[in-house]
C-alpha cells in the first residue's frame, strides 16, 4: 500500500475540509508533519486507523466523539475520512463516515478508481484486511510516545501477538483451536455401549480436569494482573524514593562519608597496630641503649688493656703442666716454684667457651646498635600515618553530624513508610509467584492426565465397531493439529532469529554504545550493557529499541510479502506512520535515528513537534523529504497575554497558533518552496 492522500471532513479537531498529499517518491519517501502538542498529530494517525478499521488507538481520548465540536454546533452531523491509496498497481479510495443522525447507511466503503469512474468493492472490510490486516496495523501506525510498551515484561503478550500477526500464523492458530474443539465434540459423541462404558467415566474425568485447568489458568491470569499491579506499585515507590531530591543528595553524601569514615577507621587501627608492632619488635633496641653502650665500653677497655682477648690459653697452660716441661726446655716439677708460677697463669687464661661467648656478645651488641639506628624512621612514619587517619576520621565525623542535622528537616517517616511498604509489596510479589508456580504445576499434572485419558478413550473406542469411527475422527483431528503445531513452533523460531538479527543490525547502526540484545522465547526484549547490566526501560536506548523492533517487523512483513506457504497469511508492504518517534531520545540519538528512518519503509509519514524536529533531525532527513506540512491551531478566543507562536520553514514564517479565528480547530498548511 502506498498512501496518496487523506481528506478529512469535520473529523475531531479538523473543522470543515482538510487534506494532505503524501509523498510517493521512492527517493524522497518521507512526508513530515510539524505540529505542537495537542494540535492534531495523534488525530492524523488515528484518522488513518479509523478510516481503515473504524477504530482508534487506546490512548485516543474521547474515542466516541468523532465529529468536530464546532461543526456539531453549526448543525452538521456527518464526519468523514477518505484515504486514497495504491495497492498492487491499482488505485483505491477508502471512505468512512460517522453520522450522528442516521446510523443505517453504509459507514465504510472502498472504491477502485478505474480511469474516471469508481467501482465499489463488495466487501471493503475484507479487502482492507488483505492489504494491511487489522492486527498488523498498530505496528505500522506507530505511536512513538509509547514505544516502550513493546519492551515491558507486562507486554510480552503484545510482543508475541505482534510477531505472530506479522508472521501470518493466524490461520494455523485458529485451525489448531478448531481442531481441538471438534476433537472434543467427537469424544463426547461416542455412543454408550457395553465396551465403552468406561469411556463415559473417562469423559467425566476428562471434563473435570478441563474445568480444573481452566480455573487454574484463569487464577493465573488474575494473579498475573495482580503481579503487574504490585510490580508497578514497587516501581512507583522506587521512583518516589529516588526523586526525594533533597534526601537523595544528602543521603548520597552520607553514604560517601560513611564509607570514608569506615576507611579512616580501618587505617587508624592499622597504623596504631603498626606502632604497637614496632614497639614489640624494636622496643629492646631503645631500652638496651645504655647497657649496650656500657658493655661496648667495658669490652673496649679490656681489649685496650690486653685483657681481651686473654693472653693465655687455658688448654695450652694445662698441656705444659701435664708435660712437666716448659716450652723453653726447663723442667716443671709438680709442686716446684716454677710449676706453681705456670699454674698461676690459669687464673687469667681463657678457654674456647669463653671466647665464643665474648664473640657472640659482640655480634649481638652490634645488631642492637644497627637496629636502634633504623628504629626511629619506621616509628615516625607510622605515627604520621596514624595522625593523618585520625584527622580524616574527625573531619568525616563532623561532616556526617552536619548532614544528620540537615536530614532532620526531611520527613523521613514518609520515606521509612514507603520503604516498609516496598518490603511488604516485595513479599506479596514473592507469594504471588509461588501461587502462580503451584497453579502451573497443577495445570501440567492435569494436562498429562488429560492426555492419557484422551489416548485411552481413543484406544477403547477402536475396540468396538460402533465407536471405532469416532476414534478415527479424533485421530485425524489430533494428527493434523500436531502437524500444524509443529509448523507454528518452527515458524516462530525462524521469525525470532530474523527479528533478532534485524534489531541488532539497526541498533548497531544507531546506538553509540556497545549494547547487547536479549530476546527471550516469549519475545521479551531488553538491552544490556557490555558488562551485562540491563538498561532502564525509560532510557533513550530502550526507546530506540522499540523503534528498532517496529522497523524489524516492517522489514519482516515486507520480506514475507511473497510468502508461498498456503498456511501463512502473506506479509505486506505498508507505509510507516510514526507519531513522535523521538520521544525520549537525546539530540545525538535523534539525528542518528532520523538518518535511519527513511530506510525503515517504502513510505514514511513522520509527525513531529518543534522540539523533536530539531535542526539536526531535519538536516539528517533533508535529502528524503518529499512533502512537508505544518498543523496550525485556530482559536476563536483572542490572544490575550499569550505569546505569538511561529516557526520558519523554507524562509517563510508560519503562525502555528491563530487567535480571533472563525472556528476552533486545526488547519493543515503545506510548506512549499525550494
Amino acid at each position, binding site marked *: 500500500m502506498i498512501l496518496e492522500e487523506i481528506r478529512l471532513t469535520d473529523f475531531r479537531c479538523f473543522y470543515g475540509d482538510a487534506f494532505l498529499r503524501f509523498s510517493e517518491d521512492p527517493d524522497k519517501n518521507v512526508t513530515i508533519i510539524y505540529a505542537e502538542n495537542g494540535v492534531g498529530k495523534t488525530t492524523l494517525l488515528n484518522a488513518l486507523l479509523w478510516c481503515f478499521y473504524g477504530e482508534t488507538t487506546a490512548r485516543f481520548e474521547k474515542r466516541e466523539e468523532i465529529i468536530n465540536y464546532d461543526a456539531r454546533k453549526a448543525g452538521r452531523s456527518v464526519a468523514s475520512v477518505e484515504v486514497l491509496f495504491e495497492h498492487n498497481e491499482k488505485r483505491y479510495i477508502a471512505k468512512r463516515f460517522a453520522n450522528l443522525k442516521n446510523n443505517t447507511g453504509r459507514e465504510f466503503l472502498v472504491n477502485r478508481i478505474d480511469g474516471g469512474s469508481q467501482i465499489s468493492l463488495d*466487501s471493503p*472490510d*475484507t479487502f482492507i*484486511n*488483505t492489504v494491511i490486516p487489522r492486527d498488523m496495523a498498530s505496528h505500522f501506525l506507530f505511536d512513538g510516545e509509547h514505544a516502550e510498551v513493546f519492551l515491558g515484561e507486562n507486554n510480552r503478550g503484545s510482543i508475541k501477538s505482534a510477531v505472530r500477526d506479522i508472521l501470518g500464523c*493466524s*490461520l*494455523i492458530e*485458529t*485451525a489448531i483451536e*478448531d*481442531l481441538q*474443539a*471438534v476433537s472434543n*465434540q*467427537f469424544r463426547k459423541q461416542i455412543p454408550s455401549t457395553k465396551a465403552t462404558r468406561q469411556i463415559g467415566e473417562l469423559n467425566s474425568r476428562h471434563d473435570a480436569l478441563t474445568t480444573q485447568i481452566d480455573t487454574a489458568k484463569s487464577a493465573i491470569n488474575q494473579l498475573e494482573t495482580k503481579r503487574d499491579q504490585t510490580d508497578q506499585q514497587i516501581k512507583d515507590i522506587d521512583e518516589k524514593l529516588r526523586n526525594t531530591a533533597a534526601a537523595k543528595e544528602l543521603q548520597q553524601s552520607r553514604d560517601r562519608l560513611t564509607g570514608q569514615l569506615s576507611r579512616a577507621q580501618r587505617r587508624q587501627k592499622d597504623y596504631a597496630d603498626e606502632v604497637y608492632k614496632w614497639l614489640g619488635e624494636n622496643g629492646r633496641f631503645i631500652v638496651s641503649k645504655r647497657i649496650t653502650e656500657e658493655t661496648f665500653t667495658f669490652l673496649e677497655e679490656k681489649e685496650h688493656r690486653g685483657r681481651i682477648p686473654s693472653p693465655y690459653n687455658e688448654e695450652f697452660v694445662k698441656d705444659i703442666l701435664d708435660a712437666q716441661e716448659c716450652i723453653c726446655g726447663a723442667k716443671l716439677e709438680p709442686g716446684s716454684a716454677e710449676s706453681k708460677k705456670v699454674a698461676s697463669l690459669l687464673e687469667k687464661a681463657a678457654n674456647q667457651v669463653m671466647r665464643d661467648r665474648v664473640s657472640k656478645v659482640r655480634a649481638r651488641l652490634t645488631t642492637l646498635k644497627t637496629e636502634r639506628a633504623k628504629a626511629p624512621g619506621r616509628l615516625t612514619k607510622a605515627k604520621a600515618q596514624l595522625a593523618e587517619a585520625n584527622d580524616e576520621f574527625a573531619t568525616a565525623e563532623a561532616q556526617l553530624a552536619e548532614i544528620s542535622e540537615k536530614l532532620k528537616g526531611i520527613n523521613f517517616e514518609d520515606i521509612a513508610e514507603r520503604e516498609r511498604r516496598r518490603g511488604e509489596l516485595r513479599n506479596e510479589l514473592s507469594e504471588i509467584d509461588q501461587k502462580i508456580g503451584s497453579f502451573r504445576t497443577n495445570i501440567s499434572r492435569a494436562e498429562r492426565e488429560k492426555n492419557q485419558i484422551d489416548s485411552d478413550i481413543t484406544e477403547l473406542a477402536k475396540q468396538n465397531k460402533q465407536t471405532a*469411527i469416532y476414534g*478415527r*475422527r479424533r*485421530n*485425524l*483431528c489430533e*494428527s*493434523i493439529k500436531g*502437524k*500444524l503445531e509443529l509448523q507454528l513452533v518452527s515458524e516462530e523460531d525462524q521469525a525470532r532469529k530474523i527479528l533478532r538479527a534485524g534489531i541488532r543490525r539497526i541498533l548497531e547502526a544507531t546506538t553509540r554504545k556497545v549494547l547487547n540484545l536479549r530476546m527471550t522465547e516469549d519475545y521479551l526484549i531488553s538491552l544490556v550493557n557490555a558488562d551485562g547490566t540491563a538498561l532502564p526501560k525509560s532510557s533513550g536506548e530502550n526507546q530506540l529499541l522499540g523503534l528498532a523492533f517496529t522497523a524489524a517487523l516492517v522489514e519482516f512483513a515486507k520480506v514475507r510479502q511473497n510468502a508461498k506457504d*498456503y*498456511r501463512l*497469511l502473506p506479509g505486506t508492504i505498508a507505509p510507516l506512520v510514526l507519531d513522535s518517534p523521538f520521544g525520549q531520545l537525546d539530540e545525538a540519538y535523534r539525528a542518528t535515528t532520523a538518518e535511519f528512518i527513511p530506510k525503515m519503509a517504502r513510505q514514511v509519514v513522520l509527525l513531529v513537534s518543534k522540539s523533536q524536529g530539531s535542526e539536526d533531525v531535519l538536516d539528517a532527513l533533508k535529502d528524503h523529504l518529499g512533502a512537508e506540512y505544518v498543523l496550525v491551531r485556530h482559536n476563536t478566543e483572542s490572544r490575550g497575554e499569550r505569546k505569538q507562536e511561529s516557526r520558519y520553514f523554507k524562509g517563510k514564517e508560519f503562525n502555528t497558533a491563530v487567535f480571533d479565528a472563525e472556528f476552533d480547530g486545526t488547519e493543515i498548511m503545506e510548506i512549499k518552496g525550494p
Partner: protein
Amino acid sequence: MASETETELGKNDPIVREVIELERSYFFEKRNVKTERQRKLRDIIERHTKPGADAHDP
C-alpha cells in the same frame, strides 16, 4: 527417500490444505462464525474418515 513417518504425515497434506482453506475463507469475516466454521471442519473430518476415505489413520 522419505521416512515412513514423513510418508504417513504427507498423506494428510490435502486435508491440512482443505482445513486451512476453510480457515482462510472465514478469516476476514467480522461476524461470529465460530460454530459454523467448526461445523464445516467436522464435515471435512467426517468425510475423510468414512470407510474407504483417503485419510491416514495413525
